[in-house]
Protein backbone atom coordinates (compact mmCIF):
# COMPACT_ATOMS: atom_id res chain seq x y z
CA UNK A 1 0.00 0.00 0.00
CA UNK A 2 2.82 2.34 0.71
CA UNK A 3 3.93 4.18 -2.37
CA UNK A 4 7.34 2.92 -3.35
CA UNK A 5 9.82 5.27 -5.04
CA UNK A 6 9.23 3.29 -8.23
CA UNK A 7 5.66 4.60 -8.20
CA UNK A 8 7.03 8.13 -8.06
CA UNK A 9 9.11 7.39 -11.13
CA UNK A 10 6.05 6.12 -12.99
CA UNK A 11 4.09 9.19 -12.05
CA UNK A 12 6.96 11.35 -13.24
CA UNK A 13 6.74 9.71 -16.63
CA UNK A 14 10.07 7.97 -16.25
CA UNK A 15 10.86 4.39 -17.18
CA UNK A 16 9.46 1.97 -14.62
CA UNK A 17 11.64 -0.22 -12.41
CA UNK A 18 14.38 2.34 -11.97
CA UNK A 19 16.43 1.92 -8.80
CA UNK A 20 15.73 4.03 -5.72
CA UNK A 21 18.95 5.99 -6.09
CA UNK A 22 18.37 6.65 -9.78
CA UNK A 23 14.91 7.96 -8.98
CA UNK A 24 16.20 10.19 -6.19
CA UNK A 25 19.00 11.50 -8.37
CA UNK A 26 16.58 12.27 -11.18
CA UNK A 27 14.25 14.04 -8.73
CA UNK A 28 17.18 16.09 -7.42
CA UNK A 29 18.22 17.08 -10.93
CA UNK A 30 14.74 18.00 -12.10
CA UNK A 31 13.64 19.65 -8.85
CA UNK A 32 16.71 21.09 -7.14
CA UNK A 33 14.57 23.20 -4.79
CA UNK A 34 12.49 20.19 -3.80
CA UNK A 35 15.61 18.18 -3.11
CA UNK A 36 16.95 21.00 -0.95
CA UNK A 37 13.68 20.94 0.98
CA UNK A 38 13.94 17.19 1.40
CA UNK A 39 17.48 17.62 2.70
CA UNK A 40 16.28 20.17 5.27
CA UNK A 41 13.60 17.78 6.49
CA UNK A 42 16.18 14.99 6.64
CA UNK A 43 18.50 17.14 8.75
CA UNK A 44 15.61 17.91 11.08
CA UNK A 45 14.73 14.21 11.30
CA UNK A 46 18.30 13.22 12.14
CA UNK A 47 18.53 16.01 14.71
CA UNK A 48 15.29 14.88 16.33
CA UNK A 49 16.37 11.24 16.50
CA UNK A 50 19.89 11.89 17.79
CA UNK A 51 19.03 14.91 19.97
CA UNK A 52 20.56 13.25 23.03
CA UNK A 53 23.87 12.76 21.24
CA UNK A 54 23.91 16.18 19.58
CA UNK A 55 23.20 18.17 22.72
CA UNK A 56 26.12 19.88 24.48
CA UNK A 57 24.22 20.61 27.69
CA UNK A 58 21.12 19.40 29.46
CA UNK A 59 18.34 21.35 27.67
CA UNK A 60 16.38 21.97 30.87
CA UNK A 61 19.27 22.58 33.28
CA UNK A 62 19.36 26.19 34.45
CA UNK A 63 22.52 28.11 35.29
CA UNK A 64 21.98 31.23 37.38
CA UNK A 65 25.58 32.33 36.95
CA UNK A 66 25.40 32.49 33.18
CA UNK A 67 22.10 34.00 32.04
CA UNK A 68 21.54 35.69 28.67
CA UNK A 69 25.03 34.67 27.59
CA UNK A 70 26.12 35.49 24.05
CA UNK A 71 27.11 32.69 21.66
CA UNK A 72 30.52 31.33 22.67
CA UNK A 73 32.66 28.20 22.42
CA UNK A 74 30.98 26.84 25.53
CA UNK A 75 27.41 27.77 24.54
CA UNK A 76 27.30 27.73 20.73
CA UNK A 77 24.09 29.72 20.43
CA UNK A 78 24.21 31.45 23.82
CA UNK A 79 21.99 30.96 26.86
CA UNK A 80 18.50 32.17 27.74
CA UNK A 81 17.26 34.18 30.73
CA UNK A 82 17.51 31.11 32.97
CA UNK A 83 20.96 30.19 31.73
CA UNK A 84 19.75 27.25 29.65
CA UNK A 85 21.81 26.35 26.58
CA UNK A 86 19.94 27.51 23.48
CA UNK A 87 21.67 25.16 21.06
CA UNK A 88 20.70 22.10 23.11
CA UNK A 89 17.16 23.40 23.47
CA UNK A 90 16.82 23.91 19.74
CA UNK A 91 18.13 20.40 19.08
CA UNK A 92 15.53 18.96 21.45
CA UNK A 93 12.90 21.34 20.11
CA UNK A 94 13.29 19.62 16.74
CA UNK A 95 12.01 16.46 18.39
CA UNK A 96 8.94 18.19 19.83
CA UNK A 97 8.17 20.04 16.59
CA UNK A 98 8.55 16.93 14.48
CA UNK A 99 6.53 14.70 16.81
CA UNK A 100 3.68 17.20 17.04
CA UNK A 101 3.91 18.07 13.33
CA UNK A 102 4.00 14.50 12.02
CA UNK A 103 1.50 13.12 14.52
CA UNK A 104 -1.10 15.83 13.92
CA UNK A 105 -0.62 15.74 10.14
CA UNK A 106 -1.02 11.96 10.06
CA UNK A 107 -3.98 11.96 12.43
CA UNK A 108 -5.79 14.70 10.52
CA UNK A 109 -4.93 13.34 7.07
CA UNK A 110 -5.87 9.74 7.85
CA UNK A 111 -9.17 10.72 9.49
CA UNK A 112 -9.91 13.19 6.71
CA UNK A 113 -8.80 10.65 4.09
CA UNK A 114 -11.20 8.01 5.37
CA UNK A 115 -14.05 10.54 5.50
CA UNK A 116 -13.22 11.68 1.96
CA UNK A 117 -12.97 8.12 0.67
CA UNK A 118 -16.29 7.03 2.10
CA UNK A 119 -18.08 10.24 1.25
CA UNK A 120 -16.83 10.15 -2.34
CA UNK A 121 -17.46 6.43 -2.79
CA UNK A 122 -20.92 6.30 -1.26
CA UNK A 123 -22.04 9.58 -2.76
CA UNK A 124 -25.65 10.76 -2.59
CA UNK A 125 -27.03 12.24 0.62
CA UNK A 126 -24.10 10.98 2.71
CA UNK A 127 -21.73 12.91 0.50
CA UNK A 128 -23.88 16.04 0.61
CA UNK A 129 -24.18 16.05 4.42
CA UNK A 130 -20.47 15.32 4.86
CA UNK A 131 -19.54 18.13 2.51
CA UNK A 132 -21.67 20.64 4.39
CA UNK A 133 -20.11 19.52 7.67
CA UNK A 134 -16.63 19.93 6.22
CA UNK A 135 -17.63 23.41 5.03
CA UNK A 136 -18.34 24.29 8.63
CA UNK A 137 -14.97 23.06 9.86
CA UNK A 138 -13.12 24.69 7.00
CA UNK A 139 -14.88 28.02 7.36
CA UNK A 140 -13.05 28.75 10.58
CA UNK A 141 -9.47 29.97 10.32
CA UNK A 142 -7.04 27.17 11.07
CA UNK A 143 -5.33 28.98 13.89
CA UNK A 144 -8.54 30.17 15.55
CA UNK A 145 -9.92 26.63 15.54
CA UNK A 146 -6.67 25.23 16.93
CA UNK A 147 -6.60 27.99 19.57
CA UNK A 148 -10.10 27.24 20.79
CA UNK A 149 -9.47 23.49 20.67
CA UNK A 150 -6.23 23.55 22.61
CA UNK A 151 -7.64 25.93 25.20
CA UNK A 152 -10.64 23.66 25.58
CA UNK A 153 -8.61 20.47 25.89
CA UNK A 154 -5.97 21.85 28.22
CA UNK A 155 -2.18 22.01 27.88
CA UNK A 156 -0.75 18.56 27.13
CA UNK A 157 1.28 17.16 24.25
CA UNK A 158 -1.49 14.88 22.95
CA UNK A 159 -4.09 17.65 23.21
CA UNK A 160 -1.96 19.94 21.05
CA UNK A 161 -1.74 17.15 18.46
CA UNK A 162 -5.54 16.78 18.45
CA UNK A 163 -6.08 20.54 18.29
CA UNK A 164 -3.84 20.88 15.24
CA UNK A 165 -5.18 17.79 13.50
CA UNK A 166 -8.85 18.84 13.54
CA UNK A 167 -8.43 21.71 11.03
CA UNK A 168 -6.50 19.35 8.72
CA UNK A 169 -9.41 16.90 8.45
CA UNK A 170 -11.57 18.91 6.00
CA UNK A 171 -8.59 19.69 3.77
CA UNK A 172 -7.56 16.04 3.56
CA UNK A 173 -11.14 14.91 3.01
CA UNK A 174 -11.56 17.34 0.08
CA UNK A 175 -8.38 16.16 -1.66
CA UNK A 176 -9.11 12.45 -1.31
CA UNK A 177 -12.78 12.85 -2.22
CA UNK A 178 -12.04 14.62 -5.47
CA UNK A 179 -9.66 11.93 -6.62
CA UNK A 180 -12.04 9.19 -5.50
CA UNK A 181 -14.76 10.74 -7.65
CA UNK A 182 -12.69 10.24 -10.82
CA UNK A 183 -11.23 6.86 -9.89
CA UNK A 184 -14.67 5.52 -8.97
CA UNK A 185 -15.76 5.77 -12.61
CA UNK A 186 -12.75 3.91 -14.01
CA UNK A 187 -13.21 0.64 -15.81
CA UNK A 188 -11.11 -1.48 -13.49
CA UNK A 189 -13.35 -0.48 -10.62
CA UNK A 190 -16.36 -1.50 -12.70
CA UNK A 191 -14.61 -4.78 -13.45
CA UNK A 192 -14.02 -5.39 -9.76
CA UNK A 193 -17.67 -4.67 -9.08
CA UNK A 194 -18.73 -7.05 -11.84
CA UNK A 195 -16.58 -9.74 -10.24
CA UNK A 196 -18.60 -9.30 -7.07
CA UNK A 197 -15.93 -7.70 -4.92
CA UNK A 198 -17.42 -6.20 -1.78
CA UNK A 199 -17.75 -2.43 -1.52
CA UNK A 200 -15.42 -2.03 1.44
CA UNK A 201 -12.73 -3.99 -0.40
CA UNK A 202 -13.18 -1.94 -3.57
CA UNK A 203 -12.93 1.29 -1.62
CA UNK A 204 -9.87 0.36 0.43
CA UNK A 205 -7.98 -2.00 -1.88
CA UNK A 206 -8.80 -0.75 -5.37
CA UNK A 207 -9.44 2.96 -4.99
CA UNK A 208 -7.44 4.05 -1.93
CA UNK A 209 -3.96 3.08 -3.24
CA UNK A 210 -4.54 5.25 -6.30
CA UNK A 211 -5.23 8.34 -4.21
CA UNK A 212 -1.82 8.07 -2.55
CA UNK A 213 -0.16 10.61 -4.85
CA UNK A 214 -2.35 13.57 -3.85
CA UNK A 215 -2.37 12.22 -0.29
CA UNK A 216 1.42 12.38 0.03
CA UNK A 217 1.45 15.85 -1.51
CA UNK A 218 -1.16 16.97 1.00
CA UNK A 219 0.73 15.50 3.96
CA UNK A 220 3.99 17.19 3.00
CA UNK A 221 2.31 20.55 2.58
CA UNK A 222 0.34 20.19 5.83
CA UNK A 223 3.44 19.23 7.81
CA UNK A 224 4.82 22.72 7.34
CA UNK A 225 1.66 24.43 8.50
CA UNK A 226 1.28 22.01 11.42
CA UNK A 227 4.78 22.91 12.63
CA UNK A 228 3.91 26.58 12.21
CA UNK A 229 0.65 26.27 14.15
CA UNK A 230 2.41 24.38 16.95
CA UNK A 231 4.99 27.16 17.19
CA UNK A 232 2.26 29.80 17.26
CA UNK A 233 0.20 27.99 19.90
CA UNK A 234 3.28 27.52 22.08
CA UNK A 235 4.21 31.15 21.56
CA UNK A 236 0.80 32.19 22.86
CA UNK A 237 1.16 29.86 25.83
CA UNK A 238 -1.45 27.38 24.60
CA UNK A 239 0.86 24.79 23.14
CA UNK A 240 3.29 22.18 24.33
CA UNK A 241 3.74 22.56 28.12
CA UNK A 242 6.98 22.59 30.11
CA UNK A 243 9.40 20.83 30.43
CA UNK A 244 9.51 20.01 26.69
CA UNK A 245 11.66 22.62 24.95
CA UNK A 246 9.48 23.94 22.14
CA UNK A 247 10.68 26.40 19.51
CA UNK A 248 7.49 28.42 19.79
CA UNK A 249 7.69 28.82 23.53
CA UNK A 250 11.36 29.77 23.35
CA UNK A 251 10.09 32.86 21.53
CA UNK A 252 7.30 33.71 23.96
CA UNK A 253 7.04 36.67 26.30
CA UNK A 254 10.32 36.10 28.11
CA UNK A 255 12.28 36.18 24.85
CA UNK A 256 10.61 39.41 23.76
CA UNK A 257 11.46 40.97 27.10
CA UNK A 258 15.18 40.26 26.80
CA UNK A 259 15.35 40.64 23.02
CA UNK A 260 17.25 43.90 23.13
CA UNK A 261 19.92 42.63 25.51
CA UNK A 262 20.21 39.23 23.91
CA UNK A 263 18.96 39.16 20.30
CA UNK A 264 20.13 35.57 19.88
CA UNK A 265 17.21 34.58 22.11
CA UNK A 266 14.83 35.66 19.36
CA UNK A 267 16.88 34.89 16.26
CA UNK A 268 17.86 31.23 16.56
CA UNK A 269 14.58 29.53 17.48
CA UNK A 270 12.83 31.56 14.77
CA UNK A 271 15.38 30.50 12.18
CA UNK A 272 14.87 26.88 13.23
CA UNK A 273 11.09 27.15 12.76
CA UNK A 274 11.44 28.93 9.44
CA UNK A 275 13.91 26.39 8.04
CA UNK A 276 11.75 23.43 9.04
CA UNK A 277 8.61 24.92 7.50
CA UNK A 278 10.54 26.14 4.46
CA UNK A 279 11.91 22.64 3.90
CA UNK A 280 8.53 20.98 3.96
CA UNK A 281 7.02 23.69 1.74
CA UNK A 282 9.78 23.26 -0.85
CA UNK A 283 9.45 19.48 -0.80
CA UNK A 284 5.66 19.69 -0.93
CA UNK A 285 5.75 21.95 -3.97
CA UNK A 286 8.16 19.69 -5.85
CA UNK A 287 6.22 16.54 -4.96
CA UNK A 288 3.00 18.17 -6.11
CA UNK A 289 4.51 18.91 -9.51
CA UNK A 290 5.80 15.36 -9.76
CA UNK A 291 3.02 13.27 -8.27
CA UNK A 292 -0.11 15.17 -9.12
CA UNK A 293 -0.30 15.43 -12.90
CA UNK A 294 -3.42 17.59 -12.80
CA UNK A 295 -1.58 20.34 -10.97
CA UNK A 296 1.55 20.11 -13.03
CA UNK A 297 2.89 23.47 -14.10
CA UNK A 298 0.93 25.37 -11.51
Amino acid sequence: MAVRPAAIAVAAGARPRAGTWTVLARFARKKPLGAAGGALILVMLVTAIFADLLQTHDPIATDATYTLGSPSAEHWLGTDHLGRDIYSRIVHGARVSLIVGVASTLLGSVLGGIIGLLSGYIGGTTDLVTQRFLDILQGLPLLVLALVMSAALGPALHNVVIAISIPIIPRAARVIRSSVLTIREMQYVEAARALGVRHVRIAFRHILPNTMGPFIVLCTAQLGSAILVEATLSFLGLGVPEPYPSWGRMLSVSAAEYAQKAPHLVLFPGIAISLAVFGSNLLGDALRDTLDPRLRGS
Partner: protein
Amino acid sequence: MKTYVVQRLAIALLTLLGMSMVIFTLLRLAPGDIVDILFSTAGYVSPSEKQAIMKELGIDRPYWVQYLEWLRQIVTGDLGKSYRYDLPAWQIIRPLVPVTLELAALSTLFAVLIGVPTGVISAVRQDTALDYALRVFSLAGLSMPAFWLGMVIILSLVTWFKWIPPLSYVGPTEDFKLHAVQFLLPALAVGYRSSALIMRITRSSLLEVMREDYIRTAWAKGQTGRIVIWRHALKNALLPVVTVIGIEFAFLIGGLVVTETVFNLPGVARFLVQAILWRDYPIVQNLVMFIAIVVILSNLLVDMLYGVLDPRVRYGS
Protein backbone atom coordinates in the same frame (compact mmCIF):
# COMPACT_ATOMS: atom_id res chain seq x y z
CA MET B 1 -28.60 34.89 -10.87
CA LYS B 2 -31.24 35.84 -8.30
CA THR B 3 -32.05 32.21 -7.40
CA TYR B 4 -28.35 31.54 -7.19
CA VAL B 5 -27.86 34.35 -4.68
CA VAL B 6 -30.79 33.16 -2.59
CA GLN B 7 -29.44 29.63 -2.68
CA ARG B 8 -25.98 30.72 -1.64
CA LEU B 9 -27.38 32.86 1.17
CA ALA B 10 -29.40 29.93 2.49
CA ILE B 11 -26.34 27.68 2.46
CA ALA B 12 -24.29 30.39 4.16
CA LEU B 13 -26.90 30.70 6.91
CA LEU B 14 -26.97 26.93 7.46
CA THR B 15 -23.16 26.86 7.59
CA LEU B 16 -23.19 29.62 10.19
CA LEU B 17 -25.75 27.71 12.27
CA GLY B 18 -23.51 24.64 12.14
CA MET B 19 -20.51 26.74 13.07
CA SER B 20 -22.33 28.15 16.09
CA MET B 21 -22.97 24.56 17.30
CA VAL B 22 -19.33 23.59 16.79
CA ILE B 23 -18.07 26.67 18.61
CA PHE B 24 -20.51 26.23 21.47
CA THR B 25 -19.62 22.55 21.91
CA LEU B 26 -15.87 23.11 21.70
CA LEU B 27 -15.94 25.71 24.44
CA ARG B 28 -17.90 23.41 26.74
CA LEU B 29 -15.22 20.73 26.45
CA ALA B 30 -12.95 22.91 28.53
CA PRO B 31 -11.95 21.62 31.94
CA GLY B 32 -12.64 24.22 34.58
CA ASP B 33 -14.98 27.15 34.15
CA ILE B 34 -14.87 30.88 34.65
CA VAL B 35 -15.71 30.64 38.34
CA ASP B 36 -12.73 28.38 39.04
CA ILE B 37 -10.45 30.74 37.16
CA LEU B 38 -11.82 33.93 38.69
CA PHE B 39 -11.25 32.51 42.14
CA SER B 40 -8.11 30.52 41.53
CA THR B 41 -6.13 33.15 43.42
CA ALA B 42 -8.70 33.58 46.17
CA GLY B 43 -8.04 30.21 47.74
CA TYR B 44 -11.15 28.60 49.19
CA VAL B 45 -14.57 29.53 47.88
CA SER B 46 -17.60 28.03 49.56
CA PRO B 47 -19.73 25.85 47.27
CA SER B 48 -22.87 27.86 47.95
CA GLU B 49 -21.10 31.06 47.01
CA LYS B 50 -19.82 29.44 43.82
CA GLN B 51 -23.36 28.26 43.04
CA ALA B 52 -24.62 31.81 43.43
CA ILE B 53 -22.03 33.19 41.01
CA MET B 54 -22.79 30.48 38.45
CA LYS B 55 -26.47 31.34 38.72
CA GLU B 56 -25.74 35.01 38.24
CA LEU B 57 -23.67 34.27 35.15
CA GLY B 58 -26.33 31.90 33.85
CA ILE B 59 -24.01 28.93 33.49
CA ASP B 60 -25.91 26.69 35.89
CA ARG B 61 -28.60 26.11 33.30
CA PRO B 62 -28.63 23.10 30.92
CA TYR B 63 -26.43 23.47 27.84
CA TRP B 64 -29.30 23.50 25.35
CA VAL B 65 -30.94 26.40 27.18
CA GLN B 66 -27.66 28.30 27.12
CA TYR B 67 -27.26 27.55 23.41
CA LEU B 68 -30.76 28.70 22.48
CA GLU B 69 -30.32 31.81 24.58
CA TRP B 70 -27.08 32.55 22.71
CA LEU B 71 -28.77 32.07 19.33
CA ARG B 72 -31.54 34.42 20.37
CA GLN B 73 -28.94 36.97 21.36
CA ILE B 74 -27.10 36.68 18.03
CA VAL B 75 -30.29 37.14 16.07
CA THR B 76 -31.34 40.17 18.10
CA GLY B 77 -27.84 41.62 17.95
CA ASP B 78 -27.43 41.43 21.72
CA LEU B 79 -24.00 39.98 22.31
CA GLY B 80 -24.40 39.22 25.98
CA LYS B 81 -22.18 40.20 28.83
CA SER B 82 -18.51 39.54 29.45
CA TYR B 83 -18.01 37.38 32.56
CA ARG B 84 -14.72 38.95 33.37
CA TYR B 85 -15.31 42.62 32.80
CA ASP B 86 -18.96 42.66 33.79
CA LEU B 87 -19.66 44.80 30.74
CA PRO B 88 -21.82 44.17 27.66
CA ALA B 89 -19.65 42.23 25.17
CA TRP B 90 -20.38 44.62 22.34
CA GLN B 91 -19.13 47.55 24.38
CA ILE B 92 -15.76 45.85 24.71
CA ILE B 93 -15.50 44.56 21.15
CA ARG B 94 -16.65 47.68 19.29
CA PRO B 95 -13.58 49.88 19.82
CA LEU B 96 -11.36 46.95 18.81
CA VAL B 97 -12.99 46.39 15.42
CA PRO B 98 -11.58 49.42 13.56
CA VAL B 99 -8.03 48.54 14.65
CA THR B 100 -8.30 45.04 13.22
CA LEU B 101 -10.09 46.20 10.07
CA GLU B 102 -7.44 48.81 9.38
CA LEU B 103 -4.69 46.25 9.91
CA ALA B 104 -6.46 43.68 7.73
CA ALA B 105 -7.03 46.19 4.92
CA LEU B 106 -3.43 47.40 4.99
CA SER B 107 -2.11 43.83 5.07
CA THR B 108 -4.24 42.86 2.09
CA LEU B 109 -3.01 45.93 0.26
CA PHE B 110 0.60 44.97 0.93
CA ALA B 111 -0.11 41.37 -0.04
CA VAL B 112 -1.52 42.46 -3.41
CA LEU B 113 1.21 45.06 -4.00
CA ILE B 114 3.93 42.48 -3.35
CA GLY B 115 2.18 39.38 -4.66
CA VAL B 116 0.84 40.44 -8.05
CA PRO B 117 4.00 42.07 -9.51
CA THR B 118 6.31 39.29 -8.27
CA GLY B 119 3.89 36.72 -9.66
CA VAL B 120 3.83 38.43 -13.06
CA ILE B 121 7.61 38.77 -13.25
CA SER B 122 8.03 35.18 -12.15
CA ALA B 123 5.66 33.92 -14.85
CA VAL B 124 7.18 36.03 -17.63
CA ARG B 125 10.68 34.91 -16.70
CA GLN B 126 9.61 31.31 -16.08
CA ASP B 127 12.42 28.93 -15.06
CA THR B 128 15.09 31.61 -15.01
CA ALA B 129 17.22 32.45 -12.00
CA LEU B 130 14.93 35.41 -11.30
CA ASP B 131 11.89 33.12 -11.25
CA TYR B 132 13.60 30.79 -8.79
CA ALA B 133 14.70 33.69 -6.59
CA LEU B 134 11.20 35.18 -6.47
CA ARG B 135 9.61 31.81 -5.72
CA VAL B 136 12.05 31.22 -2.88
CA PHE B 137 11.33 34.75 -1.62
CA SER B 138 7.60 34.11 -1.55
CA LEU B 139 7.91 30.64 -0.07
CA ALA B 140 10.14 32.09 2.63
CA GLY B 141 7.29 34.43 3.52
CA LEU B 142 5.00 31.45 3.86
CA SER B 143 7.51 29.70 6.11
CA MET B 144 8.32 32.40 8.63
CA PRO B 145 6.01 32.64 11.62
CA ALA B 146 4.28 36.02 11.44
CA PHE B 147 4.98 36.72 15.10
CA TRP B 148 8.69 36.03 14.65
CA LEU B 149 8.88 38.28 11.60
CA GLY B 150 7.26 41.00 13.71
CA MET B 151 9.74 40.50 16.52
CA VAL B 152 12.67 40.65 14.11
CA ILE B 153 11.34 43.84 12.51
CA ILE B 154 11.00 45.52 15.90
CA LEU B 155 14.40 44.23 17.00
CA SER B 156 16.20 45.49 13.92
CA LEU B 157 14.54 48.90 14.18
CA VAL B 158 15.57 49.16 17.80
CA THR B 159 19.11 48.03 17.09
CA TRP B 160 19.87 50.02 13.96
CA PHE B 161 17.60 53.04 14.17
CA LYS B 162 17.24 53.37 17.93
CA TRP B 163 13.52 53.55 17.28
CA ILE B 164 11.31 52.17 20.00
CA PRO B 165 7.73 51.29 19.06
CA PRO B 166 5.06 53.11 21.08
CA LEU B 167 3.97 50.95 23.97
CA SER B 168 0.34 51.86 23.69
CA TYR B 169 -2.05 52.45 20.84
CA VAL B 170 -1.93 55.88 19.18
CA GLY B 171 -5.10 57.04 17.45
CA PRO B 172 -4.96 58.52 13.92
CA THR B 173 -6.19 61.90 15.16
CA GLU B 174 -3.65 62.09 17.99
CA ASP B 175 -0.50 61.68 15.96
CA PHE B 176 -1.03 60.54 12.41
CA LYS B 177 2.61 59.82 11.63
CA LEU B 178 3.11 57.64 14.68
CA HIS B 179 -0.20 55.92 14.00
CA ALA B 180 0.85 55.13 10.43
CA VAL B 181 4.20 53.72 11.52
CA GLN B 182 2.47 51.70 14.19
CA PHE B 183 0.24 50.06 11.58
CA LEU B 184 2.52 49.84 8.56
CA LEU B 185 5.06 47.52 10.17
CA PRO B 186 2.67 44.84 11.43
CA ALA B 187 0.76 45.11 8.15
CA LEU B 188 3.99 44.46 6.31
CA ALA B 189 4.73 41.42 8.50
CA VAL B 190 1.27 39.94 7.86
CA GLY B 191 1.07 41.09 4.23
CA TYR B 192 4.39 39.54 3.23
CA ARG B 193 3.12 36.20 4.43
CA SER B 194 -0.18 36.55 2.56
CA SER B 195 1.56 37.78 -0.57
CA ALA B 196 3.07 34.33 -1.05
CA LEU B 197 -0.28 32.75 -1.91
CA ILE B 198 -1.24 35.62 -4.21
CA MET B 199 2.13 35.43 -5.96
CA ARG B 200 1.79 31.71 -6.59
CA ILE B 201 -1.72 31.98 -7.96
CA THR B 202 -0.84 34.98 -10.13
CA ARG B 203 2.13 33.10 -11.55
CA SER B 204 0.33 29.87 -12.39
CA SER B 205 -2.77 31.59 -13.69
CA LEU B 206 -0.76 33.94 -15.92
CA LEU B 207 1.25 31.01 -17.26
CA GLU B 208 -1.99 29.32 -18.21
CA VAL B 209 -3.46 32.38 -19.90
CA MET B 210 -0.26 33.00 -21.84
CA ARG B 211 -0.83 29.73 -23.65
CA GLU B 212 -4.24 30.84 -24.99
CA ASP B 213 -4.89 31.54 -28.65
CA TYR B 214 -5.83 35.19 -28.21
CA ILE B 215 -2.44 35.88 -26.65
CA ARG B 216 -0.76 34.34 -29.68
CA THR B 217 -2.92 36.59 -31.83
CA ALA B 218 -1.79 39.62 -29.86
CA TRP B 219 1.84 38.63 -30.33
CA ALA B 220 1.20 38.00 -34.06
CA LYS B 221 -0.27 41.47 -34.42
CA GLY B 222 3.10 42.73 -33.29
CA GLN B 223 2.04 44.08 -29.92
CA THR B 224 4.88 44.82 -27.54
CA GLY B 225 5.44 42.41 -24.69
CA ARG B 226 4.36 44.92 -22.10
CA ILE B 227 0.96 45.46 -23.66
CA VAL B 228 0.36 41.75 -24.25
CA ILE B 229 1.14 40.89 -20.67
CA TRP B 230 -0.35 43.80 -18.73
CA ARG B 231 -3.34 44.59 -20.96
CA HIS B 232 -4.33 41.26 -22.54
CA ALA B 233 -3.10 38.49 -20.30
CA LEU B 234 -3.20 39.89 -16.79
CA LYS B 235 -6.83 40.97 -17.05
CA ASN B 236 -7.95 37.37 -17.35
CA ALA B 237 -5.22 35.94 -15.17
CA LEU B 238 -6.34 38.06 -12.22
CA LEU B 239 -9.70 36.31 -11.86
CA PRO B 240 -8.45 33.41 -9.74
CA VAL B 241 -6.40 35.95 -7.80
CA VAL B 242 -9.61 37.67 -6.70
CA THR B 243 -10.85 34.35 -5.31
CA VAL B 244 -7.64 33.84 -3.42
CA ILE B 245 -7.87 37.27 -1.84
CA GLY B 246 -11.26 36.22 -0.48
CA ILE B 247 -10.00 32.91 0.87
CA GLU B 248 -6.94 34.74 2.12
CA PHE B 249 -9.09 36.58 4.59
CA ALA B 250 -9.51 33.53 6.82
CA PHE B 251 -5.80 32.99 6.58
CA LEU B 252 -5.09 36.60 7.42
CA ILE B 253 -6.96 36.46 10.72
CA GLY B 254 -4.56 33.78 11.95
CA GLY B 255 -1.68 36.13 11.20
CA LEU B 256 -3.41 39.01 12.96
CA VAL B 257 -3.87 37.06 16.20
CA VAL B 258 -0.14 36.92 16.84
CA THR B 259 0.86 40.14 15.12
CA GLU B 260 -1.50 42.22 17.24
CA THR B 261 -0.02 40.51 20.28
CA VAL B 262 3.59 41.20 19.25
CA PHE B 263 2.94 44.82 18.22
CA ASN B 264 0.70 45.55 21.16
CA LEU B 265 -2.25 46.70 19.07
CA PRO B 266 -5.61 46.59 20.83
CA GLY B 267 -7.46 44.67 18.13
CA VAL B 268 -10.10 41.95 18.04
CA ALA B 269 -7.59 39.17 17.33
CA ARG B 270 -5.36 39.91 20.31
CA PHE B 271 -8.38 40.22 22.56
CA LEU B 272 -9.58 36.80 21.35
CA VAL B 273 -6.45 35.14 22.75
CA GLN B 274 -6.88 36.87 26.09
CA ALA B 275 -10.54 35.91 26.24
CA ILE B 276 -9.69 32.29 25.44
CA LEU B 277 -7.17 32.20 28.25
CA TRP B 278 -9.81 33.60 30.59
CA ARG B 279 -12.50 31.20 29.36
CA ASP B 280 -14.75 34.21 28.98
CA TYR B 281 -17.39 32.24 27.04
CA PRO B 282 -19.56 35.10 25.77
CA ILE B 283 -16.59 37.00 24.40
CA VAL B 284 -14.91 33.98 22.79
CA GLN B 285 -18.17 32.66 21.37
CA ASN B 286 -19.10 35.98 19.90
CA LEU B 287 -15.66 36.79 18.56
CA VAL B 288 -15.25 33.42 16.83
CA MET B 289 -18.79 33.72 15.50
CA PHE B 290 -17.99 37.22 14.28
CA ILE B 291 -14.90 35.90 12.49
CA ALA B 292 -16.95 33.08 10.97
CA ILE B 293 -19.55 35.55 9.69
CA VAL B 294 -16.87 37.79 8.15
CA VAL B 295 -15.20 34.81 6.47
CA ILE B 296 -18.47 33.44 5.06
CA LEU B 297 -19.55 36.86 3.84
CA SER B 298 -16.22 37.57 2.17
CA ASN B 299 -16.34 34.21 0.38
CA LEU B 300 -19.87 34.95 -0.74
CA LEU B 301 -18.89 38.39 -1.95
CA VAL B 302 -15.97 37.02 -3.94
CA ASP B 303 -18.18 34.43 -5.62
CA MET B 304 -20.62 37.13 -6.65
CA LEU B 305 -17.82 39.38 -7.84
CA TYR B 306 -16.47 36.55 -9.93
CA GLY B 307 -19.71 36.45 -11.91
CA VAL B 308 -19.53 40.20 -12.50
CA LEU B 309 -15.87 40.19 -13.53
CA ASP B 310 -16.00 37.18 -15.82
CA PRO B 311 -18.90 37.13 -18.29
CA ARG B 312 -18.15 33.48 -19.03
CA VAL B 313 -19.30 32.57 -15.52
CA ARG B 314 -23.07 32.44 -15.45
CA TYR B 315 -24.82 31.25 -12.36
CA GLY B 316 -28.08 29.42 -12.03
CA SER B 317 -28.19 28.08 -15.58
